């Protein structure tokens, strides 16, 4: 067996309440590696043929939580959650840093594949003895913080009871959902460690749809053996040397972006992207650090980047709120995007977003969207129940809870920005376009906090438009070549992209080879494995359904707002260049061997060993 893999995957059929184990042959593992890639393959094999009919929130969808061969060995252990996305109706490889990943491996599993739906709330407990489905009725309705505390105590106690004499048991690793996931808020996140989230894709809702509150793992075994242990050890040390050298990033993480991206690159969402520039100095890193950071070097398993910092509010009405940093994405989405420039309010809303189990990016995107509709008088105080004014933390606090509980207008917004737009159009008897023009989404997935208009940030013309993961800022389309060895690799090897940047790519791929023993290189990834994964994801994305199906090429575009000129700042007047989008889109398709509408050609599919997908693509071509 190739190195780095525990070798088996845990299968949980919640309908039958059955637990079993699955293995995949070496060829499959080599062809799809792990995480994001393997998830797409599993989905295709099991529900690909009825894809368009599968409701992402129905029992036939799968919730897949996978590690990769590099997880826990390469710095920055992560878990990759996937399934059919209730937002894009395609697939997303959604990752988060958590001890759940290496605990799972030490328990002897590379991942968990959950199908069906439990009648009662449950959680799955994975240990060296295998998996167990356990009742979670007492956890249902609890927020993230309460869930984490309760499970730490409960599972800790059970394990200690099982093996009382081996010494102290450590807390398990876990992924869980908050009320948002339970109530199937379409863009809800799979949460872990209080404030880490698999945010994109809406897999929190998928877990909720299965009555699955959490998956908990505690393993006492060793990490899987690797193909070339001595090389792996050396590479491990070397890669940490690179990470440790990144003094600036280690010091501040992305926590300084709240001011920097707005002020410097004019690409920060402000008031639902109506603006992308600000000079609010109250909102700078130091103001967070000096008053709120109680731990300035916080890391996950095997990470020396420690880009996280634990924040705590010590005084006032939000006293006791705890969150991580917030990082740039939440500084903007729980801050500037709400017109909020007060660090304390931003920390409070970030904490609340995490507790409720919203995705810190996608949830607030929908809220910002609602606030703009209120600003424009499309949604009224009557619709919402109160005034939804920019910069009013109390108002957004209420809206956040309403969406998580699907109360009032929250029930509509819980469908995610795209579907909410359509529903509101219906409600208000307006044409969809009239509402979609304020929806900053790509293929149902709300866009991350990096605008394309100034062209000064790392997101450009087709970054989102061509991406198989839509608005996901962690998986941007570039030239269909270099991006393959970027996020697609990290999401399939399953480690943190922040532990990737700063380390020479050659070293990382040598590491991958030393771990697995596969003849893997940057080139092989850029030419074969990466494209294979992306092409399969593209196929599933285009098949879409049941409620929404994307039109090839037409829907491969930016949100309308990105074509409005920037209203202020050094880049005032600048907008995303349509012509450039068109031309680069074609190059992208060509590079990947897709036709002019972005449908994979027969040759490409054959070349990538995806011939069985061809029949479905043929339909699309016609």
């Amino acid at each position, binding site marked *: 067996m190739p190195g780095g893999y525990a070798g088996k995957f845990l299968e949980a059929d919640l309908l039958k309440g059955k637990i079993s184990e699955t293995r995949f042959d070496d060829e499959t593992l080599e062809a799809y590696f792990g995480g994001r890639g393997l998830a797409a393959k599993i989905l295709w094999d099991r529900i690909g043929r009825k894809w368009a009919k599968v409701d992402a929130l129905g029992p036939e969808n799968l919730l897949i939580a996978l590690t990769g061969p590099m997880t826990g060995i390469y710095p920055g252990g992560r878990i990759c959650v996937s399934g059919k996305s209730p937002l894009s109706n395609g697939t997303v490889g959604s990752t988060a840093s958590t001890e759940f990943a290496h605990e799972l491996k030490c328990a002897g599993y590379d991942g968990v594949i959950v199908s069906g739906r439990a009648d009662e709330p449950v959680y799955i407990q994975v240990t060296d003895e295998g998996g167990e489905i356990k009742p979670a009725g007492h956890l249902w309705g609890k927020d993230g913080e309460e869930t984490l505390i309760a499970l730490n105590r409960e599972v800790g106690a059970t394990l200690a009871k099982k093996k009382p004499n081996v010494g102290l048991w450590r807390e398990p690793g876990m992924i869980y959902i908050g009320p948002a996931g339970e109530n199937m808020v379409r863009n809800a996140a799979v949460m872990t460690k209080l404030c880490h989230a698999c945010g994109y894709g809406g897999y929190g809702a998928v877990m909720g749809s299965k009555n699955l509150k959490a998956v908990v793992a505690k393993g006492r075994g060793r990490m899987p053996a690797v193909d070339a242990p001595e090389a792996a050890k050396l590479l491990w040390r070397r890669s940490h040397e690179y990470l*440790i050298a990144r003094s600036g990033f280690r010091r501040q993480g992305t926590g300084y972006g709240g001011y920097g991206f707005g002020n410097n690159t004019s690409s920060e969402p402000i008031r639902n992207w109506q603006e992308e520039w600000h000079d609010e100095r109250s909102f700078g890193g130091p103001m967070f650090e000096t008053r709120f950071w109680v731990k300035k070097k916080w890391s996950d398993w095997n990470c020396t980047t420690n880009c996280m910092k634990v924040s705590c509010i010590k005084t006032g009405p939000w006293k006791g709120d*705890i969150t991580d940093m917030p990082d740039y994405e939440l500084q903007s989405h729980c801050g500037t995007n709400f017109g909020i420039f007060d660090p304390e309010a931003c920390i409070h809303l970030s904490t609340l977003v995490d507790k409720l189990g919203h995705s810190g990016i996608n949830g607030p995107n929908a809220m910002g969207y609602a606030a703009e509709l209120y600003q424009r008088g499309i949604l009224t105080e009557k619709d919402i129940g109160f005034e939804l004014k920019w910069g009013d933390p109390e108002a957004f606090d209420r809206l956040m809870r309403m969406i998580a509980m699907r109360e009032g207008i929250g029930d509509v917004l819980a469908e995610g920005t795209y579907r909410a737009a359509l529903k509101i159009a219906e409600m208000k008897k307006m044409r969809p376009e009239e509402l979609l023009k304020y929806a900053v989404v790509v293929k149902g997935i709300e866009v991350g906090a990096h605008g394309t208009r100034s062209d000064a940030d790392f997101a450009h013309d087709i970054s989102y438009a061509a991406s198989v993961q839509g608005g996901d800022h962690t998986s941007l389309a570039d030239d269909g070549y270099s991006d393959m060895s970027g996020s697609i690799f990290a999401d399939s090897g399953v480690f943190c992209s922040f532990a990737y940047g700063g380390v020479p790519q050659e070293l990382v791929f040598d590491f991958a080879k030393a771990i697995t023993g596969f003849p893997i290189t940057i080139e092989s990834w850029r030419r074969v494995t990466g494209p294979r994964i992306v092409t399969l994801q593209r196929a599933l994305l285009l098949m879409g359904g049941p409620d929404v199906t994307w039109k090839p090429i037409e829907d491969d575009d930016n949100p309308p707002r990105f074509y409005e000129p920037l209203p202020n700042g050094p880049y005032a007047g600048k907008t995303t260049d349509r012509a450039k989008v068109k031309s680069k889109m074609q190059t992208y398709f060509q590079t990947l061997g897709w036709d002019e509408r972005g449908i994979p050609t027969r040759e490409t599919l054959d070349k990538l060993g995806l011939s069985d997908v061809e029949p479905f693509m043929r339909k699309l071509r016609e």
Partner: protein
Amino acid sequence: MSKPIWIARDYAACSGCKRCEIACSLHHEGWMWPEASRVRVFMPFPGCEVPHLCAQCNDYPCVDSCPVQALSTDADTKAVIVDREKCISCGKCIKACPGQVPILHPGDDKAIICDLCGGDPECVKVCKEAGYNALMLVEEGPSVHRRLFSRNPIEVAKDLAVLFFGEKGEEVI
């Protein structure tokens, strides 16, 4: 190195990266094995990380507790040494330890306790390299303080929670 040494700890400085566990198990087990690591970082609540390892109490209750004399102290480093041949996995040392530091090895169920790597602890090296200094090497013989560090990590974490989060900290663990 033959001087008595000790691994001083600054809990509040621990990032929770657990590289100490990796370095320790690489050294003792030949590969990454967190649950077989002689230092284990507890995290009963995120942010409250507690590196848990032998503190070499000056009165060595674990050594005295062993019914088969499998435990002894190293003449140089003063570390507790486990004779795996003799150990019968009875767990008495665990119960005797005020902080329940020892564990039975997940592989062979023999008691395992930090042996200070013969005087050059791997955990300290990686922690220092990363600039955390949550674990610090101190050249110092056993003192009465030591037993104070042999404390249940959950209790320690409860204190940290209050230090970091104030009143809120009283609820989270």
